[in-house]
C-alpha cells in the first residue's frame, strides 16, 4: 500500500478509536452516541438474526433502480440535448439552477401520482441524480475530439453506433463525475424519502429505532449505510483510477 493509503487508514482508525475512548470513558452520554464496537456488535446481531435483511434488500434495490435510471436516462437525455444546440441553450440556465429546487416538496404530489409504493421513492432518487448525469454527459460530449467523429464517418457508422462506440467511451472520464454523483444522490434521495413516508427500508428502520430510543439498532443501521456507501464509492473510484491510468490521465 502507498504511504497515502496508510495515512488514510490511520486517520479513519484514529477517529473511530477517539470515539470509542470518549464513549467508553463516559465523556459522551451513551444516550447520545454509543461506542463504535457496540454499533458493530449490534449490526452483526441484526444481520445474524435476519431482522433487517428485508429493509436492506428494499433500500438497496430502490437505490440501484434510482441509480440505473439516473445514469441511463441522464446519458440518453444528455445525448439528445447535445444533438439540439438550440434546445440546449434554452435549457442551460434551468439545468444550472436545478439543484436549488428542494425535491422533497414534491413528495405529496408523487404519492398522489404513483401511490404509496416504492415508485415515488425511486422517482425522487432519480430526480436527484439524473441532472448531474445530464450535465456530466454534456461536458463529456463537448470534449469528444472532432477527429474521432471524422473516423466514425469514414467507417460509415450510423448515429446510434457512433454514440455507443465513439461518443460514449470518449466521454467516459467526464461521465464518471456524473456516475459518482448519481450514486450519492440515489442513496440520499431513497433513504431520505424512506424517513418521511415509508413503511419499510433502512431510512424507515432508522426513524423507527429513533422513535423507540433504540440506540444500538439506530447506530447499527447508520453504520451499515455508511459502510455500504463507502464500499460502492471505493469500487467506483477503483474503476475510475484504472480507466484514467490507461488513458494516461491519472495524477
Amino acid at each position, binding site marked *: 500500500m502507498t504511504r497515502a493509503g496508510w495515512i488514510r487508514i490511520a486517520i479513519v482508525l484514529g477517529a473511530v478509536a477517539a470515539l470509542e475512548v470518549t464513549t467508553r470513558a463516559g465523556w459522551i452520554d451513551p444516550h447520545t452516541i454509543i461506542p463504535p464496537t457496540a454499533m458493530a456488535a449490534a449490526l452483526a446481531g441484526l444481520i445474524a438474526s435476519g431482522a433487517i435483511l428485508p429493509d436492506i434488500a428494499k433500500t438497496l434495490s430502490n437505490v440501484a433502480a434510482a441509480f440505473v435510471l439516473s445514469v441511463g436516462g441522464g446519458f440518453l437525455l444528455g445525448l439528445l440535448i447535445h444533438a439540439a444546440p438550440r434546445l440546449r441553450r434554452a435549457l442551460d440556465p434551468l439545468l444550472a439552477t436545478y439543484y436549488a429546487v428542494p425535491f422533497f416538496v414534491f413528495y405529496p404530489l408523487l404519492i398522489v401520482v404513483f401511490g404509496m409504493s416504492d415508485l415515488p421513492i425511486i422517482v425522487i432518487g432519480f430526480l436527484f441524480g439524473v441532472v448531474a448525469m445530464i450535465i456530466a454527459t454534456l461536458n463529456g460530449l463537448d470534449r469528444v475530439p472532432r477527429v474521432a467523429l471524422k473516423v466514425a464517418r469514414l467507417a460509415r457508422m450510423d448515429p446510434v453506433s457512433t454514440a455507443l462506440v465513439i461518443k460514449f467511451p470518449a466521454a467516459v472520464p467526464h461521465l464518471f463525475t456524473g456516475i459518482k454523483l448519481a450514486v450519492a444522490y440515489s442513496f440520499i434521495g431513497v433513504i431520505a424519502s424512506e424517513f418521511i413516508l415509508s413503511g419499510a427500508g433502512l431510512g424507515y428502520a432508522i426513524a423507527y429505532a429513533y422513535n423507540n430510543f433504540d440506540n444500538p439498532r439506530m447506530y447499527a443501521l447508520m453504520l451499515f449505510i455508511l459502510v455500504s456507501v463507502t464500499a460502492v464509492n471505493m469500487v467506483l473510484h477503483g474503476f475510475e483510477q484504472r480507466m484514467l491510468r490507461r*488513458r494516461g490521465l491519472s495524477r
Partner: protein
Amino acid sequence: MTLAAVAGPGLRAGEAHAALRGVTRVFPPADRRQAPVHALGPVDLDLARGEFFAVVGPSGCGKSTLLEILAGLAAPTEGEVVFEGAPVRGSPPDGVGVVFQEDASFPWLTVWDNVAFGLRRAGTDAAETARRVDHALGFMGLAGFARAYPAQLSGGMRQRVCIARTLVLEPRLILLDEPFGALDQQTRLLMGDELLRLWRDTGATILLITHALDEAAMLSDRIGVMSARPGRFIDMVATGWPRERDSTIVADAAFGEVTARLWSSLRAESLKALGGER
C-alpha cells in the same frame, strides 16, 4: 513483405482515379456583420491511379478543406468530386482512407483494437481481421506494442497506429493530412521511406498534404502548389523520380531543383498568408 495488391473497380483508359472539378468551399459567416469566408477554389485536380501527389501551400490556404472534400467528409459549395467514376456527395465512399494531422487514436482501446477498428465495423471475420492487423502492426514496427494503450506510446508511435488503422482497410486512395507534422526530422525521413514502400507495395493512389517542401519533393510524383486563401493551384511540379526510390534521393542534384522551384512558387504566397494573419 507486401500488402494485398489493390483491386479497384476497373477504370476506362485515361480516366482519373479521383478528380475535383471546379470545387470551391465558402464558409458562412459566424454572424451577420461578417463576410462569408472563401476558403478554397475553384480547384481542378486529376489524380492518376497509383500516383503519389503532394499538396503544399501557405498555412490557412484550404489544404485540409480540400482533403475533407475529396474524402467526402465535407461537401463542396460548388463543383464536383469524382472517385472511381462515381460522384462523391458529402459522405465518404468505400476505398478511401484518411490519416489525420491530429492524434486520432482511441485512448480507450489497445493498439491492436485500434487497428482492428475499421475491419470490425466492416464485419470482417475474426481470423481475417487478426491476420491483417498483425501484418499491419509488423509493417509499422508496432508488433511489440499490440496490447499497449495509446497513452503509453510516443506521439510518433500513435501516428503510426493511425496509419496502420487506415492501411488494414486496404484503401485504394489514401489521403494524408500532414501525418508526420508532430515528428522529428529523422523520424520523418524514415516514415517517408515507409510510406514509399507501402505505396509501391499496394499500388494505392496517395494524396499527401504537407508544409515541408523537402518532404513533398522527396516523396511525390507530382506536387501541387497552392496559393494563399482562397486556395487555388498556382503551380504543378512533376518530379520525374523513378517508382523505386527512397529518402536517399535528397542527395540528388535534381532534388535541389525541385525544392527551389517549389519555394519560388510559394514564397510570395507565404508572405501574403503571413501578412493576412496579422
